[in-house]
């Protein structure tokens, strides 16, 4: 660690922070934390006092960069991490409140500006050869609590001492009496005399803090990056505790941000209003980018778009990166952006696809056989001769695992407010990386950082997406082109899905055996050769800034350095990106032999498709491969995979601890059954539904996690249901147990979205997904029950990371459970029903005939083509777990309605109208409208289950259903049949009514964008129905139809 070098970069502007003691002119004091030089950094006031800086609103006296106390005695904590749901604001507040003996009513938070004193000193990347601290003002890598725990306790302890000294002065008592004072309910009280003074009055009067204080608290400890910490307080009130429920009011310190998030007052980036920034109004910008990622664009129809309602400006930004439409409302900007026609100059990605023979997945697979050109392979963990040894080991197996590109899908899309005010370029942005944001503003505005300012807002989901600052540069670029007017730039969900920085595709090849060179012994630790093909995220992000956004790289050393520090790849020319191998390189398993090889495409073959940091980054795929493979190779060798793991964790007591505890609470009892026998049993069982538990564990960010999933698989449909999860974590001392539980619950669900649903596919540079209809995340009814336990450590054990920790184990625990239930191995994420069926070795083929036919006997052929079309089949529905549910999609595979909708949809405070409006919405993925006002108060509805259709229904079968009164009955009774002239007359009336009058049938021929219309037309359908019933009336019957 070399702070000296780093500090010099900040030059005069930041030398301000170096003074050891800084007294405010107003008499207030500043309390900081010690820096490495032994001084304590003091900062922030000039920023914090600036009008509309951050959310600072309480006029206050500074207690350093972290603590402010107002004249009313309100304590405000400056939070130097971004709050994106992980509860970091509550962390800052509870650490300070603990020392100052106050409750949550007296404390609030505000976000720090981009300043050196706020950098994160705990971000450590396990590099190829050494651990390198990153030192950036960054919220990521699950490092916040680790970084904050000691420094905020020290800052608060210093504030406490300052208040005590000021109180003694006010009481006319000597400083030696300091031990006789206590803090209570926002006051300093002298125990013997009973004199008391409030924080507010003392903050006005307090003087500088003595250096004695810091000496007493062993400042040098801050130098330590590892090891135990002093616990400055004996009886903790908040830390390490779940606050008890109090009758009639909320528990103290569950979360300090919760109230604002349940009443709509929380201000996320997208919620920043002119009143927050001191403006009268904003303009709203939406950027239109080329569909082929990385293409350069210009507008074709500028004057047409300029003339659309409320459009104020149309500007081209960032060297053709996009065309920004600026309007006076968000809606007008979105609407006008849809009208933009682009000239597109394709970039390198025009040849990039994920699928097919030349797709990236196949290229990676081929690379294992040296059939892909331009690949470098680095032996990250060398092990000479391991491959030969394994190849000679009986029972050694080989398996490949694939993970796709996945999006972050933060529910708050990218957005940023930018403006020039008083010569200062300012952004209000939901960012995880204020320091890079500051550099981005500077670059986009073309002014030095001293004339730029970043205000960090609440973040509606980060997950690593907001470490990249593309949207911030866009906002500044737009504002700059319209003379610095305040602009709120918003990405639509479609923009956000297509133009993400995705978790890269990774393909793993594993070769291994639970025992080397013989029968597995009780303490075997086996051998694994592990090869990974993936792509360096660090290199991409750095290159992206150079090539796509920043043409003049020489002037942007600061930004590059900020990113390079994350991995040191670009600066040190190290060929390896730690993010590609993390979780595998520093695996918690002590295998008898371990070989790890990292492969990448190089030179001109490096994909230009954007990749980035996605919650748990490399761990998200390395743990999947390792945890699945251990189960797989153990079951092939009839070895208990849990016992094998225990052997390999013999040096890691905390990882072993969570493993043992999760077995206890879940009751998971692994079998050592051989896979092939298991498969045969399942095949012969005659039942579709199979259920079992599965296990996975992992260590990273200094912490350990173990999980068990209870999963069932329907082998007839490929549907996976995750019933329950048990998770145990060990992340050192847990400051806020309930918030850690939130993180674990959410982390499992985040991991399950990727395990079961999310996948981005690319064809010729175009992302094929755009919104939640084709790239959904886990929904309420798909979410398992989750039981979380914490293996709590004492308060002097440094807290370690937890935000990303649970994510990597979700997918392997499910895959292992599926294997335990069926003997079937899922090696490619996501485990969609189609993939499950493929893994089972059964291929479903749906063939449906879309040819419209003419009249006569062949009229039925046409009716059949309509009735077997997805537009009809979807509403007629399927039976799922005994419930009649509609399906969605255009085929060949139809999915159950994404929400849990059934034919007996009760009134639950909403109904179909909650989402399905009167008209089709002209957006792909939007719910269809209710048949164009054909029926007042129309609700979507379903026929009885006897009338369920299929895409591959036979003609005779269809005819039999339609003419059978037992099967064609609706809620008003049967629809006649062919048994008598009366029955035929009834059938004619009912069937003609359905095709002529039912608004849903109308709708099938005008279903809106993104849905294929039923073949032919409504008129054709009416005519064909008439012809077919006429044919029946002539005495013809279903048996005469060809099948």
């Amino acid at each position, binding site marked *: 660690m070399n702070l000296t070098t780093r500090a010099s970069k900040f030059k005069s502007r930041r030398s301000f922070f170096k003074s050891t003691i800084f007294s405010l002119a107003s008499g207030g004091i500043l309390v900081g934390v010690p820096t490495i030089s032994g001084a304590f950094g003091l900062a922030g006031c000039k920023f914090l006092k600036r009008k509309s800086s951050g959310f600072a609103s309480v006029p206050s006296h500074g207690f350093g960069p972290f603590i402010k106390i107002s004249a009313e005695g309100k304590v405000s904590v400056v939070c130097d991490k971004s709050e*994106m*749901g992980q509860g970091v604001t509550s962390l800052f507040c509870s650490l300070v409140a603990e020392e100052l003996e106050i409750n949550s009513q007296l404390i609030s938070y505000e976000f720090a500006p981009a300043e050196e004193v706020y950098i994160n000193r705990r971000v450590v990347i396990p590099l190829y050869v050494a651990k390198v601290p990153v030192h950036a003002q960054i919220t990521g890598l699950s490092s916040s609590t680790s970084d904050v725990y000691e420094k905020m306790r020290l800052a608060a302890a210093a504030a406490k001492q300052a208040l005590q000294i000021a109180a003694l002065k006010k009481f006319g008592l000597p400083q030696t009496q300091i031990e006789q004072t206590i803090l209570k309910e926002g006051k300093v009280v002298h125990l013997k005399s009973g004199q008391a003074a409030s924080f507010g009055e003392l903050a006005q009067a307090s003087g500088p803090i003595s250096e004695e204080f810091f000496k007493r608290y062993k400042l040098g400890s801050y130098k330590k990056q590892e090891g135990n910490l002093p616990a400055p307080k004996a009886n903790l009130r908040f830390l390490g505790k779940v606050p008890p429920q109090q009758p009639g009011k*909320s528990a103290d310190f*569950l*979360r300090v941000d*919760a109230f*604002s*998030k*349940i*009443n*709509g*007052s*929380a201000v*996320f980036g997208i919620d920043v209003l002119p009143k927050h920034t001191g403006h009268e109004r904003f303009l*709203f910008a939406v950027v239109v980018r080329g569909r082929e990622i990385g293409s350069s664009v210009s507008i074709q129809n500028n004057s047409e778009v300029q003339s659309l309602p409320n459009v104020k400006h149309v500007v081209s930004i960032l060297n053709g990166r996009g065309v920004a439409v600026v309007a006076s*409302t*968000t*809606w007008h900007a979105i609407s006008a952006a849809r009208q933009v026609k682009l000239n597109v100059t394709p970039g390198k990605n025009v040849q990039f696809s994920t699928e097919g023979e030349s797709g990236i997945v196949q290229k990676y697979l081929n690379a294992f056989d040296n059939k892909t050109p331009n690949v470098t392979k680095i032996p990250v963990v060398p092990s000479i001769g391991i491959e030969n040894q394994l190849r000679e080991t009986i029972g050694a197996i080989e398996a490949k695992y694939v993970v796709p590109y996945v999006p972050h899908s*933060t*529910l*708050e*899309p990218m957005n940023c407010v930018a403006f020039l005010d008083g010569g200062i370029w300012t952004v209000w942005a939901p960012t995880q990386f204020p320091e890079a944001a500051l550099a981005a503003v500077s670059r986009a505005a073309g002014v030095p950082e001293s004339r730029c300012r970043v205000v960090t807002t*609440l*973040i*509606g*989901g980060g*997950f690593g997406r907001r470490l990249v600052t593309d949207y911030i540069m866009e906002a500044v670029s737009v504002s700059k082109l319209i003379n610095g007017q305040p602009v709120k730039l*918003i990405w*639509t*969900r479609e923009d956000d899905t297509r133009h993400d920085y995705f978790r890269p595709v990774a393909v793993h090849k594993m070769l291994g055996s639970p025992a080397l060179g013989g029968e597995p012994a009780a303490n075997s630790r086996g051998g694994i050769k592990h090869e990974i093909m993936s792509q360096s995220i660090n290199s991409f992000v750095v290159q992206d800034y150079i090539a796509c956004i920043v043409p003049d790289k020489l002037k942007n050393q600061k930004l590059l350095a900020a990113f390079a520090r994350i991995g040191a790849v670009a600066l040190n020319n190290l060929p390896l990106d730690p993010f590609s191998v993390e979780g595998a390189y520093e695996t918690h398993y002590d295998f008898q032999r371990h070989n790890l090889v990292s492969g990448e495409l190089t030179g001109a073959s490096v994909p230009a498709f954007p990749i980035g940091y996605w919650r748990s980054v490399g761990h998200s795929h390395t743990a999947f491969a390792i945890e699945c493979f251990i189960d797989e190779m153990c079951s092939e060798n009839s070895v208990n995979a849990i016992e094998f793991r225990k052997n390999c964790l013999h040096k890691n007591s905390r990882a072993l601890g969570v493993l043992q505890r999760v077995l206890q609470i879940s009751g998971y009892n692994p079998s050592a059954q051989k896979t092939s026998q298991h498969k045969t049993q399942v095949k012969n069982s005659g039942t579709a539904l199979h259920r079992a538990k599965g296990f996975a564990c992992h260590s990273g960010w200094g912490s350990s996690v173990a999980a068990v999933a209870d999963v069932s698989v329907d082998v007839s449909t490929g549907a996976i249901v995750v019933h329950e999860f048990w998770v145990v974590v060990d992340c050192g001392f847990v400051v806020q147990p*309930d918030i850690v539980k*939130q993180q674990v*619950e*959410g982390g*499992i*669900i985040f991991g399950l979205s990727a395990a079961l649903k999310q996948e981005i596919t690319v064809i010729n540079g175009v992302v094929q997904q755009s*919104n*939640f*209809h084709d790239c959904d*995340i*886990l*929904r*309420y009814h798909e*979410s398992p*029950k989750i039981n979380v336990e914490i293996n709590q450590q004492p308060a002097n054990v440094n807290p370690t990371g937890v935000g990303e920790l649970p994510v990597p184990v979700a997918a392997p625990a499910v895959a292992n459970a599926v294997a335990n239930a069926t003997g079937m191995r899922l090696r490619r994420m996501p485990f969609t029903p189609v993939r499950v069926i493929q893994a089972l070795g059964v291929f479903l083929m749906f063939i449906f005939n879309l040819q419209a036919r003419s009249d006569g006997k062949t009229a039925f052929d046409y009716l059949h083509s309509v009735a077997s079309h997805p537009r009809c089949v979807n509403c007629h529905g399927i039976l799922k777990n005994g419930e009649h549910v509609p399906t969605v999609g255009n085929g060949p595979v139809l999915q159950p309605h*994404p*929400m*849990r*909708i*059934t034919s007996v949809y*009760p009134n*639950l*405070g*909403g109904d179909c*109208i*909650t989402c399905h*409006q009167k008209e089709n*919405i002209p957006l792909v*993925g*939007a719910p269809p409208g209710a048949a164009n006002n054909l029926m007042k108060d129309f609700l979507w509805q379903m026929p009885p289950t006897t009338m369920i259709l299929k895409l591959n229904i036979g003609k005779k079968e269809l005819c039999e259903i339609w003419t059978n009164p037992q099967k064609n009955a609706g809620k008003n009774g049967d629809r006649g049949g062919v048994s008598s002239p009366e029955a035929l007359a009834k059938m004619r009336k009912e069937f003609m009514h359905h095709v002529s009058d039912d608004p849903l049938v109308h709708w099938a021929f005008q279903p809106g964008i993104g849905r294929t219309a039923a073949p032919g037309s409504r008129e054709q359908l009416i005519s064909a129905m008439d012809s077919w019933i006429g044919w029946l009336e002539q005495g013809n019957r279903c048996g005469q139809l060809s099948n």
Partner: protein
Amino acid sequence: MAKYNFNVNGKQVSSEDSDMPLLWFLRDFLSLTGAKYGCGIARCGACTVHIDGKSVRSCVIPVKDVEGKNVTTIEALGSSSENGIHPVQQAWLDENVPQCGYCQCGQIMQAAALLQVKPNPSDAEIEIAMSGNLCRCGTYPRIKKAIKLASGMVGAQ
């Protein structure tokens, strides 16, 4: 130009932008930012408001279809409760539901509409009602607990 009149949180408002989704009218014209933009196609539920007491995705209903109706947003959900906090909101605090919080106003509006007509919903009814509201942070287990906690407390006041 036609003018559409309706009521938002007890106040009469009007708009001439017939096709503008209610969501953007609430956010850009009334500064009511509790209803969030998440998908624009009724797939995520972050924009959920009540129209005449029923949950509706405000990102897909155009202003013209709100004519004459009563809209309630999260900002006024608790206005009829004594302490200004709706029982569902209180349950959300007690179960410590929110993480990033972006979806929670929509979740709460959806749950409040459910409990208004089904004071004690079954697990299946909760699933049906809540399946249209996405949460990326994964707060579903706590949403379930909070709805259970609030059961029987809505409509009883």
